[in-house]
């Protein structure tokens, strides 16, 4: 809705109304939801009292879905239809997931993102993740007693554009309004920093179930500034389970196992791994489907030897991030440990040895990310608390560029640029009379296109025929505060405008998501439809009032024709809003939004210029 009442930056338009918002940590092994209630962040438990929801989704033949513990109970017996660690498949193609040695599902190749064939049909990782998010949304709505205004969803800092977009799509599919995608280590830093009133340079070492992130942040004067981030989007606690499982199977001469047995071995190895964080030895024991017994005693030393390579693998990104931030280990005042996998003693020892100081572990590593996300969600929903006069400046983890002659990458936005960011670069044609130009957007650090991730391909057409090298094509990359990219290209040399803007999309198109959401709406009962109508009416009324007051204050920003068009649309919306057709109201609302876009932009520009000039926004009567 355009043209809402402007207010002093940082304040809610309606300061007394507490708007329900949550932070969600959508993890590889488990997920959780937190909120700020009575000024305090807290994690919300499910009906069975647990806070951690296992990120496991089971599809049944009758079309029903089980999520969490219930699904976990069937992971060995119904492994093909029980999806664990779906986060590893988000935004990934078939080749990626098979390279990750996870052949436990019936994968289906699909454009952009792999799909999984289940008894209930082919499912995209986005849909599987949406099932987890739906459970957390319901949990929050029943605990908080109302509908959510929105959610902050955390993602690994090292997630690329495809993985971020997939996460955002999953949230939309779950009916959540995404206030922000927040990097997990940054979320942890918010929770930790606000709690300890910390100042200085800190690092966050975040080893989750399937992903590893390392971020360096500077905390000063209420600003959380991420200096550099690095990581490995395919390294986590799961890999430690795998390493132990490989060893156990070798020991028992059980290298070739059916999927059910492989899963049973993995589940047991996870248990042994967790036990070894407390005990110096543990017995592993699995009964296979053919009746054989797989048995071994594992000491902590053995486990550490088996996983030494994985531990060493975490230190490469650590060094890279410090180099990118122009810092030495001595410059880091403290290292915060995040993620369940950092409970392993060998990880703590490696971090302590590398930084020469004991890592900080005073917030529960399982909860700290969700808590940080909840604190930011609370602010973004407009419930700024007194202590919330802070600002977050995050970075993009991987460079973005386009393909140039010879399959080379020209970087346009370099990694660790502060977001939001916009960068433009000029290119030209290389053949006489070239009228179209293929633009291939990639992400990654390598110099060859084939070594980077392909994000989007599009074509700029309608370039007037010119001699080679005469056209000026300006390609602009805009990365928003979620770290998501949109690209536009425009020919500027000839004065004839050819331009295009694309957002990379993966797997699910906007239309597909809208279709899935609409399908839910069409099957809803009369009560639901009534509620939807009333919501539209309230929104339309709010819009009408906002436009009227904007016209009264800033009418002079419009010319006569613009003013007339807005008045006409206002009358139409008012008339429709008295009726009972929700869709018609929605259409008129959308039209009003579009019509007032420029007006809203001019008003906002005026507000920002005034803020920069040091005037209080209140004085401007906006």
């Amino acid at each position, binding site marked *: 809705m355009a043209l809402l009442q402007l207010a002093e930056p940082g304040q809610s338009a309606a300061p007394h109304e507490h708007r329900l918002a949550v932070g969600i940590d959508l993890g590889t092994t488990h997920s959780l939801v937190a909120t700020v209630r009575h000024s305090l962040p807290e994690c919300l438990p499910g009906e069975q009292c647990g806070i951690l929801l296992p990120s496991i989704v089971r599809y049944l033949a009758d079309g029903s879905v089980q999520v969490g513990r219930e699904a976990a109970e069937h992971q060995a017996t119904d492994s093909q239809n029980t999806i664990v660690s779906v986060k590893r498949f988000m935004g990934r193609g078939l080749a990626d997931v098979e390279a990750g040695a996870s052949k436990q599902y019936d994968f289906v190749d699909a454009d952009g993102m792999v799909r999984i064939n289940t008894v209930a049909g082919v499912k995209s990782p986005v849909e599987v993740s949406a099932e987890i998010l739906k459970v957390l949304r319901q949990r929050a709505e029943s605990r908080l007693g109302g509908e959510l205004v929105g959610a902050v969803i955390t993602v690994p800092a090292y997630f690329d554009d495809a993985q971020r977009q997939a996460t955002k799509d999953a949230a939309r599919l779950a009916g959540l309004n995404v206030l922000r995608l927040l990097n997990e280590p940054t979320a942890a830093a918010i929770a930790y920093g606000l709690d300890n009133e910390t100042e200085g340079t800190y690092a966050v070492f975040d080893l989750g179930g399937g992903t590893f992130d390392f971020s360096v942040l500077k905390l000063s004067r209420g600003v959380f500034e991420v200096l550099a981030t690095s990581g490995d989007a395919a390294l986590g606690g799961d890999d430690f389970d795998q390493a132990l499982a490989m060893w156990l199977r070798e020991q028992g001469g059980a290298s070739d196992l059916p999927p059910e047995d492989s899963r049973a071995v993995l589940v047991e190895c996870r248990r042994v791994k967790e036990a070894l964080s407390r005990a110096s030895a543990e017995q592993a024991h699995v009964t296979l489907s053919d009746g054989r017994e797989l048995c071994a005693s594992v000491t902590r030393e053995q486990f550490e030897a088996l996983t030494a390579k994985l531990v060493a693998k975490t230190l490469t990104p650590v060094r890279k991030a410090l180099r990118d931030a122009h810092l030495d280990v001595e410059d880091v005042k403290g290292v915060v440990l995040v993620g369940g996998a950092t409970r392993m003693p060998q990880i703590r020892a490696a971090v302590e040895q590398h930084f020469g100081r004991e890592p900080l572990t005073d917030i529960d590593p399982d909860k700290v990310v969700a808590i940080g996300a909840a604190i930011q969600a609370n*602010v973004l929903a407009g419930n700024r608390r007194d202590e919330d006069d802070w600002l977050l400046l995050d970075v993009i983890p991987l460079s973005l560029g386009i393909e140039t002659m010879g399959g080379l990458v020209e970087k346009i936005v370099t990694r660790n640029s502060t977001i939001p960011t916009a960068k433009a670069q000029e290119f030209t044609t*290389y053949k006489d009379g070239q009228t179209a130009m293929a633009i291939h957007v990639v992400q990654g650090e390598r110099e060859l296109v084939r070594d980077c991730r392909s994000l989007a391909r599009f074509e700029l057409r309608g370039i007037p025929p010119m001699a080679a090298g005469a056209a000026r094509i300006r390609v602009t990359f805009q990365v928003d*505060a979620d770290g998501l990219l949109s690209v536009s290209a425009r020919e500027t040399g000839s004065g004839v405008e050819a331009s295009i803007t694309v957002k990379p999309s993966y797997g699910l198109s906007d239309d597909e998501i809208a279709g899935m959401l609409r399908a839910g709406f069409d099957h809803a009962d009369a009560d639901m439809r009534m509620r939807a109508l009333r919501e539209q009416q309230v929104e339309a009324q709010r819009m009408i009032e906002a436009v009227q007051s904007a016209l009264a204050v800033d009418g002079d920003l419009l010319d006569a024709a613009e003013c007339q068009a807005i008045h006409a649309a206002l009358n139409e919306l008012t008339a429709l809003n008295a009726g009972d057709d929700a869709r018609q109201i929605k259409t008129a609302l959308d039209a009003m939004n579009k019509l007032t876009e420029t007006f809203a932009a001019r008003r906002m520009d005026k507000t920002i210029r005034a803020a920069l000039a040091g005037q209080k926004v209140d004085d401007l009567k906006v």
Partner: protein
Amino acid sequence: MRTAALSFVNPMNFSDALGDYFSLFGLPRRYAVDPATLESAYLDVQAKIHPDRYAHLPENERRIAMQWASHANEGYRVLRRPVPRARYLLHLAGIDPQIESNTAMPADFLMRQMLLREAVEEAEQDGDVATLDNLLRELRRDARTMEQSLADDFDARGDLIAATARVRQLMFLERLQEEIGSALETLEN
């Protein structure tokens, strides 16, 4: 003609649509910049315009805030580091150091660059991380000396031709530093 890629024209484009970076941060237009003053001005500006400060507003408005925040981030990135700052000053004066080739590189500078480049290649082939680290430090020292002279070129003498020549040399050094950085990364992986 549907195929292919692009040829790359201009390695650094500054956007002037929202005004110049010095005035955005309330700083005098000169080479010497006090890092603490710049940082504090940057944080003040972000506190006023960051889209999160307008989180209660609809997407249209937040997009404008995002454009301003992008502008401020880019401005901070440019003004914070000596070479981009110098290039930006030249840009404001209408000079493109890439194209402006009225000043040739001094022979001794080029000779030294060639020797350094050979040393880097050799160390890279030998997988000699320590030597690469040393070369990187040496280059940084060279660059720092040159950056100090830039202050004289710009602020004391207003000699933009000398500044342009020096910026081009610094760009040479920077490219070599980047190459060492990626060599180190490759060796570590």
